[in-house]
């Protein structure tokens, strides 16, 4: 479904991604783990068109999307839930969700998806008219995810959805991610919480300073001594 080959991404003169390759198959949950500053967010931003790769290929369903503008990529079916949620704090929950469906014209489908999002996140329904800046961190995460789902993505990019959330809420969020996946959306998940991420993922990539250092099935990585030491708290 998504095929990334040897991409280089720069911030000015700083090379943040150095020849990263990865692929995501339809129906999978693929997770990217790696330390702070490894380049995980940079990779997601490149996939969603916020950054342009200097080199390399990004293919999505046989179409090249490298360097295309974000709106083209959203339209093609990739939605990105950015790190730090980035909800529009000056707008209500409902308006945020409406913006998620910005490119869609099928009013009936949009209404349908409003209901689906509210089923997935009942708390958002209760707070429909509330300014999203006044939501709690967990609720903002739900809103950011709901907003991305309103675009009806085939591939959902999630950047650290568990950041700053209490353990119980992290569990809820992860089970919702699994549910979204069961409903037919492929997921590329960036996480610091490697344990949690590997527990729901099909496959994983480990990134260090802009390059992939290991990859494989989630079970294989969970079993690997090195990975456990470096990312799983050595349990």
């Amino acid at each position, binding site marked *: 479904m998504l095929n990334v080959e040897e991409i280089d991404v720069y911030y000015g003169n700083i090379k943040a991604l150095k020849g990263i390759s990865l692929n995501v198959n339809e129906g999978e949950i693929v997770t990217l783990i790696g330390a702070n500053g490894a380049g995980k967010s940079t990779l997601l931003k490149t996939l*969603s*068109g*916020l950054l342009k790769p200097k080199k390399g290929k990004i293919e999505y369903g046989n179409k090249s999307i490298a360097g295309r*503008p*974000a*709106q083209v990529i*959203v*339209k093609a079916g990739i*939605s*990105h839930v*950015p790190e730090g*949620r*980035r*909800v*529009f*704090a*000056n*707008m209500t929950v409902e*308006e945020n969700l*409406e*913006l*998620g469906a*910005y*490119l869609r014209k099928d009013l009936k489908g949009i209404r349908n998806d409003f209901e689906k999002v509210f089923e997935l996140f009942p708390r958002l329904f209760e707070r429909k008219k509330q300014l999203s*800046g006044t939501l709690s*961190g967990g609720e*903002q995460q739900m809103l950011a995810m709901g*907003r*991305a789902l309103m*675009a009806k993505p085939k591939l959902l990019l999630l950047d650290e959805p568990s950041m700053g959330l209490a353990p119980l809420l992290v569990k809820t969020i992860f089970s919702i991610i699994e549910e979204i996946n069961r409903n037919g959306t492929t997921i590329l998940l960036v996480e610091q919480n490697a344990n949690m991420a590997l527990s729901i993922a099909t496959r994983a990539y480990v990134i260090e300073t802009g390059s992939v250092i290991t990859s494989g099935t989630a079970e294989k990585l969970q079993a690997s001594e090195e990975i456990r030491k470096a990312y799983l708290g050595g349990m």
Partner: protein
Amino acid sequence: MEWLQQLFNGISLGSIYALIALGYTMVYGIIKLINFAHGEVFMIGSFTGFYAIAFWGLGFFPALILSMAVCAVFGVLIERVAYKRLRDSTRIAALITAIGVSLLIQYVVIYIRGAQPEAYPNVLPNRSFDVFGVQISSQSLLILVVSVVLMIVLQFIVHRTKIGKAMRAVSYDPDAAKLMGINVNNTISATFAIGSALAGAAGVIFGVYYTKIDPLMGVIPGLKAFIAAVLGGIGIIPGAVIGGFVLGIVETVVSALGFSLWRDAAAFIILILILIFRPSGIFGKNSKEKV
């Protein structure tokens, strides 16, 4: 009753400032640029209205609409030609460019038609009537109504339409807006178009109200409207409206007290005071809330 009269005059003047201030504040909200060429858009609007009325015989409303349309296109053109390429450069570079664009427009107009002023034709019937001792001219009443209607339309666009929501999203967080599939370039153009159309309307209204226009007419009202926008909190739409009205009333009151020579000074004193005591303006929060 004298006071009520002055209040009404102040509100009429304030509505012109408010219309111009809206463009400043909208553009600032979306690209964080003080568009100093905005006063010149106002001037172009005023001249468009003038030619439409004096030479093509259009009435007030057709001239108003034509001038709004011309200014909308003109504003978008300025943005695409001069500001777009500076989006990622320093703010000071963009600001200096804006001042350059402003001077360029002034002197191109002078080059083309000369610097002499023009007398605005009388397009609106002018009858005065007495309301509780206040002399209200039908002209200033119509002008006030037109301004208020435009502000309501703007409020509707910004809050209820898709493009309005896109404008708010881009001004809050351009990258997040991109992730929604919003075309940021088009949204910025739409903001320039709407803000400039309002300045165009203000230009026609100004011409009808004050009857004398010239190529440098945009400078002082432009600065005053900028002050109004800062007063209300730059980037905040209702702030620009309130700031405009407050400034209009203050100026009228200062004149009425016999200090008419101090009228312009009053505006700048307000600017200085606001920058010292409340730089974020009446409605501005001191820091943006970010979680």
